[in-house]
């Protein structure tokens, strides 16, 4: 049977400017190149497919979806690997961003195609017609921004900056209907009219000794003058210890800020950005896609079986992740009794 054995992958490292120069080399015992090593990609995304035996994985899968993906997976997701797997090594903040729902992605992708915007155009927003749920699992202490804080709590935080010009936003956040107040203030914070107030707030952030503002001051130091600094104050600051995971569904604004983690996502590149980046920013479309409902960060608790397997099951059909702490020669799953084992989860007759 073709493609019936494990295949070593040759992978691509993306040199985005926010990446650490040394973190991946230190983790993997390789020589630094002097360039940032931001993302190691493992998968079949046409933008940077891994190769097996010199053949791009997307081509290998397209040649024989049944053998490579299994019939059930190919029927459900088509002849493509449904997920993309990465290692992130973050030195500076990533963009403040959000991902669309499937319906939004399908509509946006069709619209940009109809308007003749090439897929590789700088101003192209929708690169494909898929949603892009994602989950990050920390390998080192990791932190980021995720989801809107309840507006009254954000009002209190802004108040502690002592910037008089922030009063109208603080008042809106304290008195308005939460979703509408967040929408109004978020849009105002990103608008051109707020440029002087953003500069004043940024200066206050940099001088603040308030520990609750320290992460946001760090963003200001890393991205001076960026329109996203003040909007970031509306979002929860989340920290992950090694082994902890965070899920990000459609519409949830977020920005990873630092640390090393593995990330798994649907096989898509649909990202709408509004700040902390030199990439294409599309605020009007982002405003249409953002869910302005305040929400707690969606942490994913792994199911542990007590023998070193930790199974992360986020609410996305495209992907799941298991960490195995291998303690010796006992193989998994040949002698596996773990209920969470990736290969043992189904009876052999059901594996496709």
């Amino acid at each position, binding site marked *: 049977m073709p493609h019936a054995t494990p295949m*070593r992958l040759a992978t691509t490292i993306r040199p985005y400017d926010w990446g650490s120069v040394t973190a991946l080399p230190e983790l993997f015992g390789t020589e630094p190149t002097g360039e940032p090593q931001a993302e190691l990609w493992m998968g079949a995304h046409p933008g940077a497919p891994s190769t097996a035996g010199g053949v791009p994985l997307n081509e290998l899968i397209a040649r024989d979806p049944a053998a490579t*993906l299994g019939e059930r997976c190919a029927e459900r997701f088509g002849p493509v690997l449904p997920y993309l797997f990465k290692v992130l090594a973050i030195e500076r903040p990533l963009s403040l961003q959000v991902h669309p729902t499937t319906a939004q992605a399908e509509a946006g992708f069709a619209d940009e195609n109809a308007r003749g915007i090439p897929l590789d155009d700088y101003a192209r927003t929708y690169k494909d017609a898929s949603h892009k749920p994602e989950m990050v699992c920390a390998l080192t202490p990791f932190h980021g921004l995720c989801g809107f804080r309840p507006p009254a709590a954000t009002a209190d935080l802004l108040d502690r900056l002592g910037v008089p010009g922030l009063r109208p936003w603080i008042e809106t956040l304290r008195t308005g209907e939460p979703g509408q107040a967040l929408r109004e203030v978020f849009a105002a914070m990103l608008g051109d009219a707020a440029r002087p107030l953003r500069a004043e707030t940024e200066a206050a952030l940099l001088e603040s000794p308030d520990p609750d503002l320290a992460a946001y001051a760090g963003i200001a130091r890393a991205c001076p003058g960026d329109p996203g600094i003040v909007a970031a104050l509306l979002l929860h600051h989340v920290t992950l210890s090694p082994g902890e995971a965070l899920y990000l569904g459609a519409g949830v604004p977020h920005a990873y800020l630092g640390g090393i983690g593995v990330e798994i996502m649907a096989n898509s590149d649909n990202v709408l950005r509004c700040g902390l980046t030199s990439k294409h920013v599309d605020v009007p479309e982002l405003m249409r896609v953002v869910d302005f409902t305040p929400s707690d960060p969606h942490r994913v608790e792994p199911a542990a079986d007590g023998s070193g397997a930790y199974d992360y099951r986020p609410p996305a059909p495209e992907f799941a992740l298991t960490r*195995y702490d291998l303690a010796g020669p006992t193989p998994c799953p040949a002698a596996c009794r773990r209920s969470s084992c990736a290969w043992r989860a189904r009876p052999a007759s059901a594996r496709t």
Partner: protein
Amino acid sequence: MPAIVLCVEGEARVGEDLTLRPGQSAFVPAAAASPGVSGKGVVYVARPGAFTL
């Protein structure tokens, strides 16, 4: 299910012949019959989530 195995620590053996060290990864096609992962270290296995046809 199609899986990708990533070694982040130590050394892991995937199936009979493939040894992974930190930063190295392997694709396990669906047709591969339960290859087994052994060794001493930490690996992450990515795969499709639970879905119903």
